[in-house]
């Protein structure tokens, strides 16, 4: 599994244009939002300065995007091309393919989180307790797991043409419902009641609370773990099934 993970990481970063866009989008949006809302007071719920709050929002947005795009369409394309079927004639087992891909996509999520933080520090003068920041990066990195699992599930269920729009749809839905673009309090009430159950909202929550120096709630951890386990439990058999279909 480790050799496969390493191979996938090499492939991800060798695709320069792909890596560039995946990392540039959250940074670009961060700079945009930060300048749009410049001068506004701190975010009311968390009490964080807006530039800091947005740093976490866009780091979440970037990490989710990286996890989904490193898996979804790429996985669907490799499935259609027969490469994944070829892999299944080697000692590498289906669970190891899913696990290897998931871990590899985390290696693209990490620079997304780091880069947004770095730009926030350099361009917007965001200052956070170094330990709190380090904890945020580390835990958000681990918590990007459910999104990678979701990407693999999409890549296993949907053909290569449909995989991109489906992935993008999930990406935007998760970002909006999760309150990464607009604070949850500004969402219509029906959406607001769903928000707390989404992995993206809990993902952002994890970052916001850690940055403010608090421990994330048990609910946040449970929701994220539940999504990870649930999506992985769907992704492994979905992938196995596609290999057997002719």
């Amino acid at each position, binding site marked *: 599994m480790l050799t496969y993970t390493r191979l996938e990481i090499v492939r991800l970063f060798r695709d320069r244009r792909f890596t560039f866009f995946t990392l540039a989008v959250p940074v670009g949006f961060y700079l945009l939002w930060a300048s749009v809302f410049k001068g506004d007071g701190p975010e009311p719920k968390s009490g964080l300065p807006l530039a800091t709050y947005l740093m976490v929002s866009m780091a979440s947005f970037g990490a989710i995007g990286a996890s989904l795009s490193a898996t979804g369409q790429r996985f669907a394309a490799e499935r259609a091309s027969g490469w994944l079927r070829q892999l299944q004639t*080697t000692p*590498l087992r289906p669970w190891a393919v899913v696990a290897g891909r998931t871990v590899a996509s985390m290696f693209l999520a990490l620079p997304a989180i780091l880069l947004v933080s770095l730009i926030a520090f350099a361009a917007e003068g965001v200052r956070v307790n170094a330990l709190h920041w380090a904890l945020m990066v580390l835990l958000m990195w681990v918590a990007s797991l459910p999104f990678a699992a979701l990407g693999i599930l999409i890549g296993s269920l949907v053909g290569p043409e449909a995989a991109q729009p489906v992935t993008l749809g999930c990406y935007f839905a998760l970002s909006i419902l999760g309150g990464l673009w607009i604070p949850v309090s500004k969402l219509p009430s029906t959406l607001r009641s769903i928000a707390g159950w989404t992995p993206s909202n809990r993902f952002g929550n994890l970052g916001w609370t850690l940055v403010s120096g608090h421990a994330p709630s048990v609910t946040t951890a449970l929701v994220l773990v539940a999504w990870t386990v649930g999506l992985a439990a769907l992704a492994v058999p979905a992938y196995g099934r596609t290999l057997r279909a*002719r």
Partner: protein
Amino acid sequence: MDAITVTNVAKSYGTVRAVESLDLTIPVGQSLALLGPNGAGKSTTVSMLLGLARPDAGAIEVFGDAPSTAVARGRVGAMLQDGALVEGLTVKEVVGFVRGLYPEPLPLDEILATADLTDLAKRRADKLSGGQRQRVRFALAIAGAPKLLVLDEPTAAMDVESRRTFWASMRAYAAGGRTILFATHYLEEADENADRIVVMASGRIVADGSAAEIKSRAGSRTVRFTLGDQSAAGLDRLTGVTGVEIRGTTAILTSTDADATTAGLYQSGLTVQNLEVRGADLEEAFLDLTTDRG
């Protein structure tokens, strides 16, 4: 010990019966060609041997294990029909990666040399020509030094020259006492590269034997000579003749007893020139076997 035992296996896709009551035993070290037209059930058989498809009924063992276990243990290497290459890696990286998945692989240099890829090692695998890509896929199949090599129509995308070098590489690999199973609908490939030929049609085995046995089972030979402007009347009444065909000035007689037919021909009073007696080639044998199922 047998490399493969298939016992009474059946497999359907929806309402299509791909394979029916298949029985096949392949001893270790044999090179076996699975010969048949498209839709004969060859690819389904290959998929089941690799654990990529599960039989609906019956049992398959590969070196005494279930196919997926044998694959997981690194005993099997495969070249699939649709096995494309991954994007973004060099030949050496892809081969090195697959090699690393097996417990006792071949040395990297040896793999590249066997598949004639030494000069292409640093090239991007997804940017090679069709024939070169097939060589990479062959390299992936042998990388782990598998005891069983399964090839599904390996030369489908190759030109004549690539085919020749490919089969030379394959025979070099097989020479180490390894078991080879390849599916093909190129008849001369089966004839030249296999110890044993199993002919499949409509999901069943219709013939099983050496190339010579397959030909003799189909039975007939052809007697051809230049007829010129002589009459063809009476040729069909010669001993053993089952068919008469006139192509231009040449008469082609199909016969179950070529000796008697030739003798009769010389006694017939015709002027016989350029006489040629040939065993039906495998192609004809194959057509006989696959179309005469009643």
